[in-house]
């Protein structure tokens, strides 16, 4: 692969922001959507900006991910593309979710320029907001040493931390001292670098090697972690043990980038029934837990969006009861996607498995007929 080398003398963030500033000044983009520290200083949010002076407060790699970027992007383009060209800088899992939402017609990518960056992970949101200063210091270290991966579960086993299917990617790993790679991923990305008069034919072998090494290492860890998790999750007893704390707030659904429905089925009247219905169910089961339909919500949500789950951990960050939601969703999503040889967010050209089919497939799902079984 080939790319450009850009200066980052005052650090990664500075290098990326200067680069974006130049692109905005030269008019390649009309606006930017970037994470910026909130005025109170204790969190970050995506800000849509035209004014380059605002860039000073921007963080290309903020220490936390309070709002999944794909969600921000889908609010921005829900009604289709605008006339302005907007560059969005997001982490790889956010880009992957944006690609899924694009397939689901919730994001219009036509006038959007997707920029991604190598990601060392983020800190668990709950830990960070308890003491943002401590979090900032810790994250500073994560960015410098890179190898200290974040203790957040989803990030710790994220083997897709580098270049997703973006228009251009900022390669941090393996880049020469005080600089960064910019790697075009699409023709849009190449046009962009050309319009900035930036030569992009330098080899990025050192980045590729580093990324590959780290990917292999993390993939192994992911496999082991998921195997162990599966042992602790299997069966009604264990699974209901995990979800028994659930308070049915549905925060996990509301923050999930993939759960875009304006009316979630599990919040709808379809599940609101008469006292007699609940009593009948209580009689059958011996008793009925209230709020009802906790497990149905969890399994049902998996069945709705598991094929597009990007394992970003946002649901878990938002759970007030510290339920390992994203772990269970990741476990199920990985095996569900494997059935269809699908990887959420990998490629905008891969069709969503639920909207296509093959005539000859999934024979294992069909139950073979035993001729005249009951004679």
């Amino acid at each position, binding site marked *: 692969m080939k790319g450009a080398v850009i200066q980052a003398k005052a650090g990664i963030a500075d290098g990326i922001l200067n680069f974006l500033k130049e692109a905005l000044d030269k008019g390649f983009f009309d606006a930017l959507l970037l994470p910026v520290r909130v005025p109170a200083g204790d969190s970050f949010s995506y800000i849509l900006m035209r004014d380059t002076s605002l860039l000073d407060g921007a963080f290309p790699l903020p220490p936390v991910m309070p709002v999944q970027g794909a969600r921000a992007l889908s609010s921005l383009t829900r009604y289709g593309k605008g006339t302005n060209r907007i560059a969005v800088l997001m982490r790889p899992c956010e880009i992957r979710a944006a690609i899924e939402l694009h397939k689901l017609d919730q994001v219009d990518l036509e006038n959007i320029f997707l920029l991604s960056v190598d990601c060392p992970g983020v800190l668990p949101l709950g830990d960070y907001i308890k003491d943002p200063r401590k979090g900032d210091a810790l994250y500073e270290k994560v960015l410098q040493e890179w190898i200290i991966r974040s203790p957040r579960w989803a990030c710790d086993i994220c083997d897709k931390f580098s270049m997703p299917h973006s228009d251009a990617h900022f390669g941090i790993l393996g880049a020469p001292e005080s600089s960064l790679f910019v790697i075009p991923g699409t023709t849009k990305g190449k046009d962009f670098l050309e319009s900035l008069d930036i030569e992009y034919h330098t080899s990025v072998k050192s980045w590729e090697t580093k990324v590959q090494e780290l990917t292999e290492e993390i993939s192994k860890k992911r496999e082991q972690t998921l195997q162990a998790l*599966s042992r602790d*999750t*299997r*069966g*009604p007893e264990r*699974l*209901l043990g995990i979800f*028994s704390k659930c308070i049915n707030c549905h925060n996990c659904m509301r923050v999930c980038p993939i759960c875009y429905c304006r009316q979630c*089925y599990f919040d709808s009247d379809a599940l609101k029934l008469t006292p007699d219905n609940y009593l009948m*169910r209580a009689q*059958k*089961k*011996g*008793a*009925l*837990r209230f709020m*009802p*339909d*906790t*497990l*149905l919500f969890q*399994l*049902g949500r*998996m*069945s*709705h969006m*598991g*094929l597009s789950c990007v394992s970003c951990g946002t649901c878990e960050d938002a759970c007030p009861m510290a339920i390992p939601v994203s772990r*269970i969703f990741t*476990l*199920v999503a990985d*095996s*569900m996607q494997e*059935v*269809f040889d699908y990887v959420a967010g990998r490629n905008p050209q891969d069709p969503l*498995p*639920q909207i296509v*089919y*093959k*005539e000859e*497939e*999934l024979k294992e*799902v*069909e*139950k073979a*007929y*035993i*001729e*005249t*079984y*009951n004679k």
Partner: protein
Amino acid sequence: MKEFEPKIVYFLCDWCGTGGCETASAHHLYYPENVLISRVHCTGSLSAVHILRSLIEGADGVVISGCHPGDCHFETGNYRARRRVAVVKSILETLELGPERVWFRYVAHGEGRRFVDTAAEFNDHLKKLGPNPLKLRRDT
């Protein structure tokens, strides 16, 4: 002790599935009484949530029958249903919640025999498996 009688939910599409059931009745073929028939317009319109909800709220097993490949009245509904059943099964399998309690088998309009055979075979299969642990849980 009374023999365990499974509660079965049998989803049939309005066309071949229901047709198979009607053919069975025309030929006086019997299926177990504990099979609860539920008609859906097309197996392709059956949501994964209906299957999951049945299993959580009282069914010991769920079986789905629609038109054979190539015969779907909406052309592709049965292929989509097969994918959806695969999704449900992968959830049930990964979390060990009983993927073997969900069956999917095509039944044509004229296949009354195949319909009653499926009901009887599934009934015996579930008797061997015993009650579905999920339906007995109060903490769902």
